């Protein structure tokens, strides 16, 4: 089954009423008729309407979304899967929520940075329009501030890695708990700093917040060794880092060598691309409701009873859902890998490790 949004939090009375009138709509749901009036009313999945799109830098935009039902809430630093229909196809991507939890207007925001070769970010940054409807998946992620709050905080980010940290900072501001925090953020130029204006404003208003912008075009890249100079008491702080993989790897190494790595919390945004050579195959995890089977050979050789029909890609009996990884269509050699996409197991082979829900 294709990926769908989160179950919305619907008032009990409304849910009971919808159940009661199902006898009139079967096999459809009453929701399928209600969404003719307003797509946000459907309780099949949580949807949201794009309220506003603000360009924050030349290649990043903040998308403000009003969920159709009351937002379940999230913790600052978590991300949410967002589904958008582009050229007829629903694409799902995970974006850090940049809004602080419990905004009074009930809205949430994400701030995608343009990836030229991508599909979803160009759509959101360039073509997204207020009024468009998106699907909202579940909130996930353990890159969050601990409770109780540590006394001293250190944030290290680069590029769009600022997004989950921005939510944390906004939450701290709102709670007036930004007492002793340092942010070291890298971007190419001052204009490339996502939320630059807001960050500088916070630094002016909160004496306990120290902002260091590393403009890499003039100052060179930030290295872990610079910490002693930029934040001498870094070893005493709870550190939160978010950015490209090599930066995070270097930080881990540095903390392992010089400090307590337990005090470093990280968010990785690396795409889960298969690295295997074309046509080399890969390990398959078949996931069903109650078990996971790993297979190095084709699922049936591994003793699985997989649904099948024609075995030539016609009948769609064998469709499973791709959880992670990429598959190669054995008919034309095309490789694709959208998380949550339907795949016909009879005509697809893994490209590197994959997980398929059957």
């Amino acid at each position, binding site marked *: *089954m*294709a*990926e*769908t*949004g989160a179950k919305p939090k619907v008032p009990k009375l409304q849910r009971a009423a919808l159940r009661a009138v199902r*006898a*009139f*709509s*079967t*096999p*459809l749901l009453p929701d*399928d*008729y209600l969404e*003719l009036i307003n797509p946000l009313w459907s309780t*099949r*999945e949580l949807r949201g309407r794009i309220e506003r799109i603000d360009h924050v830098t030349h290649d990043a935009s903040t998308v403000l979304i009003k969920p159709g039902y009351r937002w379940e809430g999230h913790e600052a630093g978590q991300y949410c899967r967002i589904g958008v*229909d582009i*050229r*007829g*196809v*629903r*694409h799902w991507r995970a974006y850090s929520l940049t809004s602080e939890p419990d905004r009074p207007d009930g809205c949430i925001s994400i701030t995608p940075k343009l990836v030229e070769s991508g599909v979803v970010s160009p759509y959101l940054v360039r073509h997204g329009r207020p009024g468009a409807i998106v*699907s909202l998946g579940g909130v996930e992620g353990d890159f969050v501030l601990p409770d109780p709050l540590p006394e001293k905080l250190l944030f290290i980010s680069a590029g769009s890695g600022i997004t989950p940290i921005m939510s944390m900072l906004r939450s701290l501001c709102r709670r007036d708990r930004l007492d002793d925090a340092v942010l070291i953020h890298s971007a190419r130029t001052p204009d490339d700093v996502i939320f630059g204006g807001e960050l500088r404003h916070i630094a002016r208003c909160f004496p306990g917040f120290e902002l260091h912008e590393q403009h890499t075009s003039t100052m060179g890249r930030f290295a872990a060794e610079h910490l002693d100079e930029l934040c001498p008491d870094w070893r005493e702080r709870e550190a939160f880092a978010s950015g490209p993989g090599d930066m995070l790897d270097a930080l881990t190494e540095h903390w392992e060598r010089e400090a307590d790595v337990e005090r470093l919390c990280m968010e990785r945004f690396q795409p889960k691309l298969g690295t295997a050579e074309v046509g080399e195959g890969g390990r398959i995890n078949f996931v069903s409701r109650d078990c996971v089977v790993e297979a190095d050979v084709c699922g049936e050789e591994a003793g699985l009873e997989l649904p099948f*029909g*024609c075995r*030539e*890609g*016609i*009948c*769609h*009996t064998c*469709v499973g859902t791709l959880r992670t990884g990429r598959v190669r269509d054995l*008919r*034309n050699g095309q490789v694709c890998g*959208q998380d*949550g*996409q*339907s795949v016909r197991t009879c005509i697809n082979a893994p490209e590197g490790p994959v997980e398929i829900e059957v």
Partner: protein
Amino acid sequence: MATGYRTHDENGVANPLSKLSDEQLAEIGKEFDELHDEVRADLGDRDARYINGIIALQRRLALIGRAELFASRSKPAWWIGMATLSTAKILENMEIGHNVMHGQWDWMNHPVINSRAWDWDTASTAEAWRHSHNYIHHTFTNILGKDRDLGYEIMRIDSHQSWHPVYLLQPLYNVLLMLVFEWGVAAHDLDFTAIRAGEKPMSKVREELKGMAGKGRLQIQKDYVAWPALSAALSTAVEAGLHALATRRRSRAGALKAKLRRRSQRSEFDALDSFKRTYLATLKANLWANVVRNVWSNAIIFCGHFPDQTYVFSQEEVRDEQPGGRYVRQLIGAANIEGSPLFHVMSGNLGYQVEHHLYPDMPSSRYGEIAPRVREICKRYGLPYNTGPFFKQWGTVQRTILRLAFPGGKPRKKPGPWQGETFISQGERELAMAADAARSSD
């Protein structure tokens, strides 16, 4: 000459497949593959708009039809409501249900408009249907002894099938089947041959019967209980209101006579009777809507493979079938119905049965666009392209059903290689122009 195909069957019918060399068949396979990939790569916004639009239209029509039937005791409202609801039910089964469950729209990665998630308003469960139709029928199309849709195991539709005295009754139960087609299809999904042969575990049969009963119960509940009761309740309430209003107006005149009359009139309004009559009128309209949908889908589906033009195949012939041979078997085993764009939408684009059998998982809205190119391929390779107007196709099917009720019978003359135009209607020309415009604007 292609290996494995007989040049003529025992009745002397020439098999167009046997005239092609193995190389030609490979080329045909490649050409049809390319056409498929070309359309697949072009799918996008306009296709999504189409299916979303059809689904929204169908839901609106269903609601409008139900609302019209709130006044089902008025003759015109009954007819209009019944017709609207029939249209909605036909769209739901044919252009939406059948095609979505084929996976034609799976490329959209939509959580609901998806072969795995869709359920339809008919007696067959989605799962049983996908097996018996998508898999059995579309894989083994027109192979004698393998394709259970050749006569649906209860009819002699091809002279190769041996005669049995029970077929004498087939003209009769053919008509009955038209009326209750959805139930016939659901029963057919059970696969009685496999049950008799003990090939199907009873647990599976029980599970499927339970599924069918569930679908049946929900349909009965919806069409014969819930909506009739709602329409009856509403119309009775309105009637009672109007009645009360009328009597109060008269009483304002103040005359004792009027008062007396009011009393007598009040007893004239029988709420229970009003409720009962509306309930039955709506129930009858819903029943007829189901029957209209059954008769129409039966007619379209029977025209898909049973007209005189189509070919059947023996199991030996297809033993070593290559992809090119599969395409040609699908091509000559199916028959189209010519009609207007509206006709094609109302038949779920199964008027393009040939194209549907070549590419069962291609969005149905694309069949009309590729039909001229399929005909062009037929022309080039000297292959037949089976098509004809509705009444001609339907007529030959009914004639076959009548003739083959009796022993004997021979296949009728086949049309031979396609000699006609590549575009066979104004509708197709307009479709091609609109498609070109859509492509150039992208």
